[in-house]
């Protein structure tokens, strides 16, 4: 079974530029999550999708971050404009049954450096 795919693995941009990350979850997984992990900290949930719909985006900085999940499969996370404090690893995860009963499967992450 193929795992969660993310791209790009690394991205370096100047502040105020834009960046987009892509995630392809495990086939058949209805729930998709984007987490932000700042160096030395635990992952922080940005947004959670259930199929096409948003379940939780309470910690997504909506003035600069946006995310969508196309046809309930792939997802993109965009940052525009980027700030220095957005430097982090962006982790995508998926699950088949939701967190109440199941584990999350994570991708390798996309490491963003904002200069």
């Amino acid at each position, binding site marked *: 079974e193929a795992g969660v795919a993310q791209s790009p693995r690394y991205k370096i941009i100047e502040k105020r530029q834009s960046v987009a990350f892509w995630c392809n979850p495990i086939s058949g997984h209805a729930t998709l999550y984007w987490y932000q992990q700042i160096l030395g900290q635990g992952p922080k949930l940005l947004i959670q999708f259930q199929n096409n719909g948003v*379940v939780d985006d309470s910690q997504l900085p909506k003035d600069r971050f946006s995310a969508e999940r196309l046809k309930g499969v792939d997802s993109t996370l965009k940052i525009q404009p980027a700030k220095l404090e957005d430097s982090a690893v962006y982790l995508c995860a998926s699950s088949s049954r939701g967190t109440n009963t199941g584990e999350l499967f994570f991708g390798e992450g996309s490491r963003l450096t904002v200069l």
Partner: protein
Amino acid sequence: SQQGEEDPQALSIQEGENATMNCSYKTSINNLQWYRQNSGRGLVHLILIRSNEREKHSGRLRVTLDTSKKSSSLLITASRAADTASYFCATDWRGGSEKLVFGKGTKLTVNP
């Protein structure tokens, strides 16, 4: 915040020794999960323990849960150099929107 807090922040042991990491949380939970993260990689699920369970084993891993103290522990027995990683607890808190909230992690170093 219902975020779990791991203790200690860092742990260094010799191969063959046991490693114990603790996690405390603040609100009632449905379940608690432990994940491992190797440097520069994604997180890998280790074990899930439900709120009505007290202990669970998986290979060299032993997890305990004490809901009265709102705490959990992860024991890795007979550690190996390959166990070197960061370990995170994550709670799925009761009454929430079914999301996992992660702690800050314990960085474990196993010296050969």
